[in-house]
């Protein structure tokens, strides 16, 4: 891919004059990047501004005159934000691990064991991926209540795999497909059973796939909103997105500083994870679309 990129579709760009490049490339891309990043800049600026500056219309709003950490202090020590953060981490990690384990087994069975019914099973998994949470949350709420899980983190841990498994299975199937059969056949001749083949041969080769599926699953559970909003009602079991939206707003008084600080802190972990694995992320995303 890199060779193709180097002398790729843009190989004839040198024919364009410099002013033309500015108009057709640099300026549009500058506007795109500015608009896409501005809300994040605004989050940072707002979370560091003292209230007096936030609620003044005179000064230049793009800059901070007296930066303050008061909003972060309020958020971390006078709200339940640390508990929400802990809930989100716990729910995301456990849901991701469960989903990955189930997806690895399912993807291997569909792609490599090719049991009777593997094709329909693969199709069903893809269809499951197309079912949006917005049409599931009402009956799921009824089920969660019936199972006695309402208002618990377990409710989220058990329901998140419904959108994580279809997605990760689909992604892993693509990775498993790229592993040559010969490797498995050799292992079979050497007397390995299917489980050993999966653990010792297929999984080590599919590590990039596992990483991208894991990051995707983690981000999706971290960002999940509608289930967390519906199945949890007490403040101490909420996740960060729901907690910030429902608990930091008191009546008509919006505490913009702490709100933005909460939004920023809640976004940082996913941005952090993502920045480390951006290559896997982009390749995973494009791989799953290429299917």
């Amino acid at each position, binding site marked *: 891919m890199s060779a193709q*990129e180097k*002398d*790729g*579709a*843009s*190989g*004839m760009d040198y024919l364009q004059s410099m002013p033309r490049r500015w108009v057709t*490339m640099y300026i*549009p891309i500058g506007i*795109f990047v500015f*608009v*896409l*990043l501005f809300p994040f800049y*605004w989050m940072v600026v707002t979370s560091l501004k003292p209230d007096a500056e936030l*609620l003044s*219309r005179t000064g230049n*709003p*793009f800059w901070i005159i007296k930066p303050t950490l008061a909003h972060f202090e309020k958020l971390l020590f006078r709200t339940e934000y640390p508990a929400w953060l802990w809930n989100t981490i716990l729910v995301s990690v456990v849901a991701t691990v469960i989903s990955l384990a*189930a997806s690895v*087994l*399912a993807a291997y*069975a569909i792609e490599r*064991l090719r*049991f*009777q*019914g*593997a094709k329909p099973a693969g199709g069903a998994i893809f269809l499951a991926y*197309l*079912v*949006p*949470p917005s*049409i*599931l*949350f*009402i*009956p*799921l*709420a009824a089920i969660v209540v019936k199972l006695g899980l309402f208002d618990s983190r377990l409710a989220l841990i058990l*329901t998140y*795999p*419904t959108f994580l498994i279809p997605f990760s299975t689909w992604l892993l199937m693509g990775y498993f497909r790229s592993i040559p059969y010969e490797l498995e056949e050799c292992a079979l001749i050497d007397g390995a059973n*299917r489980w050993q083949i999966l653990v010792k041969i297929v999984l080590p080769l599919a590590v990039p796939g596992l990483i991208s599926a894991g990051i995707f699953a983690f981000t999706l559970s*971290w960002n999940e909103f*509608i289930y967390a909003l*519906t199945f949890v009602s007490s403040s101490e079991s909420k996740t*960060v997105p729901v907690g910030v*939206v429902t608990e930091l707003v008191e009546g008509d008084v919006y505490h913009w500083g702490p*709100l*933005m600080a*909460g*939004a920023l802190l*809640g*976004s940082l972990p996913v941005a952090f994870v*993502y*920045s480390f694995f951006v290559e896997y*992320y*982009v390749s995973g995303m*494009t791989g799953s*679309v*290429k299917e």
Partner: protein
Amino acid sequence: MKLMLERFQNSRNALGWAFMLPAAVLLLLFLTYPLGLGTWLGFTDAKIGRPGEFIGLENFSFLITDSVTQLALFNTLFYTIVASILKFGLGLWLAILLNKNLPFKTFFRAVVLLPWIVPTALSAIAFWWIYDSQFSVISWVLMRFGLIDTYIDFLGDPWNARFSTIFANVWRGIPFVAISLLAGLQTISPSYYEASAIDGATPWQQFRHVTLPLLTPIIAVVMTFSVLFTFTDFQLIYVLTRGGPLNATHLMATLAFQRAISGGALAEGAAIATLMVPFLLAAIMFSYFGLQRRAWQQGGDK
């Protein structure tokens, strides 16, 4: 015992179904079953804490005449169509820009995805503040340049609110469309462009007759997902407007939540959610058959 274990391990079918078991149990219990239950609930009069009885089509015949539901349906279609067109156009443009030889190309590609990574509920809060009726930074800038006299009421006026929420949705959706289409662009062989350039094609003709046809399969997949996500959107509206002002931004999903969870009318909410299904199926079928037609035209058996 040992013999049985061995036979089990060598049987593709038994082993296959055993491997499928964890995923199948979770999906059947928390996806298939609720899907059926939701449809059933729509035909009952269930409330929160009270199992309902079958009442036939009563919910649906009420909802069809209910002006708020009609408005929500209109809003959802308007929101989906306008936002999807914008996401497609701008996303394709951004993908083409990112496919060129830019300085800091990798940096740009990484940074552009950020709106898509960050929790929507949290970035929606940033938009909430940007759209504030008294302290909006957009209004401040426009005032400075003398373009407006009073601050814009972004979320208080029905049409302003519709376009403000659409803008936030487009902002969030562009990265997904752009990066996916970028992956498609990179699979197009440069020789097509060289050949067409030798034949004297203009850049627009290259785009129209080389890029677009080769990109169509990926466009169909990406836009199907984009339309599905947009049609069933919930978080953005819930955070920014809760459906207001005067229900002008209520989508089917937010209305279903309001009726079922906040209002307690579980069955009515489930019926509203069920009403979304035909539209989703239509969108999926449309892109599926669109894809097939393309494959047939290209003589492929993909």
